[in-house]
Structure formats: structure tokens, C-alpha cells
């Protein structure tokens, strides 16, 4: 039934089959050269300079003591690596080719290695010795027309451990499969010809039954729609459906409760622009919308309006009587994507914009009203104790900003209790850029928050990247174990631990 419904929608889109096929070409337009950064790069830009080669295995001992439970585990991080070729530099942080860092934990230390994911784009451009395609937010000289999104899929955003492999995900194409041990690229995930190259977001979420939910935003085709996916625990397609949106928007992540999928649509309508990012027009006066989708029927059952805001990431969310409680990192507007990340070498932009704050939405399913409770701390890359996924919980973890930091850049790990409003943080210093923390529950524990927090950070002052491990209940006391590499790594987005 779903398939038939789906095909009906496909036909609708099929009327612009070739038309849709050209939409990726929105990423291409009149090229304008980007200046190369070779000098006068402020040290705080270090994390966005990029790398040019794989990094061979290097061992570095722990400072402190790694908990026994974590010994033998492997921590992975994904992010944009290659930012410059043949004197041309990407202007948008989103656009660097995917580079995966692997940190193998032993009792005594960490063995790190890093590799570029061998995407079609990376292989083709490596052979050419230059960038060939415009990125989502960057324009390069003499760009080739992009015939589909997969040709410039950088696989640079997130990682999903799957059936013994690792999926390297982007948000507008099909993921790539990596070998967990060697990081060798094993090819694209095979979702079948109907789904090959169809956007698949970098934020799939596991359900309590083991299945995995995800979506792909295909609004760039000119038809404001998302594809909703439900995958088996082994990564096969269980079902998928095309879901029309009330308007064009940008959706990066979503929330999952026991009964619903929740999508937040910032007011970002379509406009003409040379790149994908330039085509989003922030229209504050329209406000934001939230769509509540029933997981069984995959139908929108509630649509709510609220004040304008912008979201990348969600934390834990659950249903409480007639309300859905949604944790998220909320920005007052979209400048983080359209301006700050779009001109990542602009130091002033980076330190002056208003970062995300932890917030909690309450969506009333009866009245269709939304209330927003803003929390005090700036927070991004929310994580939580997954044993409490879709259940009432109090604790959210993320990157934060220390109180004495002169810049509004994330330099701390923060733990927020959304019930009490209290938070605790650990600062990595004024010259730190701190990355997404992952929560690992302690074995033989059952209380929410009993676990470990693991994160990477870059100290651009000393040009070293490191890994820190905290007791999740004692973040303020500093890491239980940490290590700093004698070199730095590019700042990334999301990670996974196996």
C-alpha cells in the first residue's frame, strides 16, 4: 500500500523527471575564484584548514586512567578533511571531503589514524588534481555540471556502525560503507536503484524495536518533500515514503518518540542563488513549523506554528500525556549556516554570531500549541543516555561555552539537567574548539546519566588535537583520561563508538 502511494507520488515527481534531474545543478553556476589561504591565517582557523593526506597510525599514551569498560573500544569521528586543491579553497565548512578519524582505545593509550573516504568525488578530483564540482555552499572555478548529488557526495558528516561496517553519511546522497578496522572504503550502500542517490540524512535514529528511522530532504528538486525511511537493524530498507512539506525548508535532523517522528521546519524558502546554501532565504516573519508524523501511517497528524528559529540537532524527545517534549539546540536565526559556516574563514563572523542554546519545545497534540523553554547554556551537538530514548529524561550533554570565554565559540563540555535547569561544564581553555561528546552507559548501571562522556577537542593554541573521557556525572571535575596528539586534526561533525 505504501509502495503504491509512493509510486503515485513518484509519478508526480516524474513529470519533471529530467527537470528534477537538473536540480543538483543548482550547485553549479558561474564560477568565481576563491582566494587561497596561505598566509595570515589566524590560529583559530586551524581547525578548518583541512588535511591533504591520510594519517598513519600513531600511538599516544593516556594521561590519567581509562575505565576498564572502555578499553578495547574504538571511537570514530567524521568531518570535512580536504578543503583546498590546486589553490582553490572551499568557503563553506560543509564542503570538505570526508575524512574519518579512528581512535583505538587500549589500557595504556590511543592509536589514532585518519583516512579520506574514497567517494566518487574524491577519487575523480584526486585524479584531476583539482576540485571539479561546486560544493553545497562553495563555488569553484570551471565547475563541471553536477548530474546528480552523488557525484559530489563528500560523505563527511556522520557515522553509523552497521552490520560490522561503518556508514559514512552526508545528507543529500547515499552513504558509503567503510571497513571499521582499516577505514577502507567498500563502496556505496545499496538501497536499490529507486533510492540510489536519494538524499539520506546524516542523522538516522534507532527505535526501541531495533529498526532505524531516517529522512532525506529533497526540497532542492523544487518540490518541497522529504523521503521518510525505516530501515531494518541490518540496514536494509523496510519501507519508505515521500512526504510533502508545507513549504521549502532546510531540515538536518529530527526527533523520534514512541509514536511519532518530529520535523522542525525553519522559515527558509527557496530563492535564486548560485549554490544550494545560497538558495535558502530566511524569512523570519513566516515563523517556524513543526510536523508531527505518525510512525505507523507515516502521515502528518499535527502541524504547528511557532516563532521563527533554526535547528540543526535534537536531543531526547518523548510523549507526556498530550504533549511531546522535544529537546533541541535552537538558534534565533539561520546565520550559522548561511553566513558563519558559509564564510568559515571569517573570524569575526564566527565569534560574533549568536550560537545555539539548549531549548525544550512542548508540542500540545490537542491544542496544536507550542511552548518554548529556553535553557541558559549555549549548547550544540546534543547527546543523551540512549537507554532513555523516547522516555522522560532530564540530562542532555553537548558542547558548551565556558563562562569566562571571551569568544562565543564552543570550548567546553556541558551537562544540562533540563528539570532543575542546572548545568555543569568543563572548559578546555580559551584556545579550544570542542567537538561532539558521545555518551556511553556504564555497564551494570541503570540510573540515567551513569556513564562516560567521550569527546575530541582541538587546542589551536598548541596546534594539538586530543581525546578526553569523563565520568558523565562528574564532568566539572575534568577528564578521567585524556591524551593529546602531537599534531592537529580538522574539526569534524559527528562520531560513533564501537
Amino acid at each position, binding site marked *: 500500500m505504501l509502495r503504491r502511494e*509512493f509510486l503515485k507520488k*513518484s509519478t508526480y*515527481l*516524474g513529470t*519533471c*523527471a*529530467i*527537470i*528534477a*534531474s*537538473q*536540480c*543538483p*545543478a*543548482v550547485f*553549479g*553556476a558561474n564560477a568565481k575564484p576563491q582566494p587561497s589561504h596561505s598566509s595570515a591565517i589566524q590560529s583559530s582557523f586551524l581547525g578548518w584548514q583541512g588535511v591533504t593526506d591520510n594519517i598513519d597510525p600513531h600511538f599516544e599514551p593516556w594521561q590519567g586512567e581509562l575505565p576498564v569498560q572502555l578499553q578495547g573500544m574504538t571511537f570514530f569521528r567524521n568531518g570535512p578533511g580536504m578543503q583546498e586543491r590546486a589553490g582553490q579553497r572551499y568557503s563553506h565548512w560543509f564542503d570538505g571531503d570526508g575524512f574519518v578519524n579512528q581512535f583505538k582505545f587500549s589500557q595504556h593509550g590511543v592509536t589514532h589514524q585518519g583516512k579520506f573516504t574514497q567517494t566518487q568525488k574524491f577519487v575523480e578530483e584526486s585524479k584531476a588534481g583539482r576540485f571539479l564540482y*561546486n560544493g553545497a555552499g562553495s563555488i569553484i572555478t570551471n*565547475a563541471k*555540471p*553536477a*548530474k*546528480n*548529488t552523488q557525484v559530489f557526495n563528500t560523505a563527511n558528516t556522520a557515522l553509523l556502525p552497521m552490520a560490522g561496517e561503518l556508514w559514512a553519511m552526508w545528507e543529500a546522497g547515499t552513504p558509503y560503507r567503510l571497513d571499521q578496522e582499516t577505514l577502507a572504503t567498500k563502496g556505496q550502500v545499496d538501497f536499490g*536503484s*529507486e*533510492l*540510489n*542517490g*536519494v*538524499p539520506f540524512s546524516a542523522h538516522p535514529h534507532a527505535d526501541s524495536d531495533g529498526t532505524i528511522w531516517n529522512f532525506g530532504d*529533497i526540497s532542492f*528538486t*523544487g518540490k518541497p*518533500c522529504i*523521503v521518510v525511511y525505516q530501515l531494518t537493524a541490518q540496514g536494509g530498507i523496510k519501507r519508505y515514503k*515521500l512526504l510533502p512539506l508545507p513549504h521549502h525548508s532546510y531540515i538536518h535532523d529530527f526527533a523520534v518518540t514512541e509514536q511519532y517522528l518530529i520535523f522542525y521546519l525553519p522559515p527558509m524558502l527557496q530563492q*535564486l542563488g*548560485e549554490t544550494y546554501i545560497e538558495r535558502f532565504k530566511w524569512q523570519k516573519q513566516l515563523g517556524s513549523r513543526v510536523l508531527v508524523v505518525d510512525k505507523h501511517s507515516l502521515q502528518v497528524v499535527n502541524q504547528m506554528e511557532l516563532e521563527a528559529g533554526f535547528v540543526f540537532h535534537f536531543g531526547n524527545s518523548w510523549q507526556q500525556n498530550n504533549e511531546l517534549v522535544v529537546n533541541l539546540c535552537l538558534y534565533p536565526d539561520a546565520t550559522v549556516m548561511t553566513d558563519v559556516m558559509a564564510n568559515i574563514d571569517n573570524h569575526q563572523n564566527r565569534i560574533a554570531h549568536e550560537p545555539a542554546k539548549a531549548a525544550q519545545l512542548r508540542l500540545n497534540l490537542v491544542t496544536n500549541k507550542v511552548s518554548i523553554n529556553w535553557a541558559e547554556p549555549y549548547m550544540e551537538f546534543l547527546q543523551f543516555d540512549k537507554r532513555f530514548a523516547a522516555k522522560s529524561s532530564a540530562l542532555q550533554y553537548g558542547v558548551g561555552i565556558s563562562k569566562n570565554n571571551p569568544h562565543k565559540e564552543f570550548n567546553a563540555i556541558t551537562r544540562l539537567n533540563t528539570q532543575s535547569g542546572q548545568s555543569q561544564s568543563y572548559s578546555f581553555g580559551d584556545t579550544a574548539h570542542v567537538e561532539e561528546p558521545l555518551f556511553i552507559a556504564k555497564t551494570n548501571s541503570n540510573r540515567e546519566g551513569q556513564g562516560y562522556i567521550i569527546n575530541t577537542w582541538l587546542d589551536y593554541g598548541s596546534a594539538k588535537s586530543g581525546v578526553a573521557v569523563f565520568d558523565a556525572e562528574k564532568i566539572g571535575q575534568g577528564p578521567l583520561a585524556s591524551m593529546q596528539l602531537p599534531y592537529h586534526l580538522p574539526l569534524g561533525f559527528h562520531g560513533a563508538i564501537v
Partner: protein
Amino acid sequence: MFKKLVFTSAFAISSLAAQAAELTVDIAGITQLEGDIYVVLYDSVSAMESNKATLAYKGAVTKLQTTVTFSDLSAGDYAILAYQDLDNNQKLNRNMIGIPNEPYGFSNNPRLMGPPSFDKLRFAVGDVDHTIQISID
């Protein structure tokens, strides 16, 4: 309609027009020696929008560069879609959102900002022979 215009054995296709030039289309960017190349020519906005080919060519892919000639073409404006049918199912395969997953290209090799309008693909054929190149990679 479209299939009727496909002459599988013919390399060059002659229209019924009384006069005018020969159009040579160089197809570049072929990376796989498989299937067939289709070159579909439209002579107007309406023809393209309704997918009514004015002329079409189909030929087996035997080398990495193919040249297709349309003879006695009437003077006027045209647009071309070229694609490689790798699996010989006589169509351009697309995923569920309409994006082709077989090699294809358009006249003018445009980096388009939206739908491939006739205008963006348009090129003129006059009284003299004319050659264009389309990359399908």
C-alpha cells in the same frame, strides 16, 4: 511516439525537411562500453515539454567517443538530450525523485539552476553544417 522516431540501424537520420544543414553531435564522457547511446532532439519548447522528439538516434556503444549526425536539418533552434542506456531497457533510469542514475547530458552542457528549459539548451542551426559537443559524464 518517441520509439517510432528511433532508427536502430541508422547512424544518420534524415528528416523530411527539404534543405538545410547537417548537425554533428560529438558525445564525450563515455566511460563504459555498454548499452546504447540515445540522442534526442527537440525543436521547440512545447516539443521538449511534452517529450515529443523531433528526431532521435540510438546506437550501440562501441567506443568512448561517439559522433552522431543529423542530416538535412531545417534551420532553426534545437535542444538535445543525450543519454546512455546501460542496461538496455530502452529508457533513462531514474531514482524515485527523478534523478537519472545512468549517464546523461544536454546541449550547451549547462550548469542549470533549475529545470532544463529549452532556452538553456537551445542552439541554432542555420544553412551551414554545425557541430556541438555534449558530455554525458
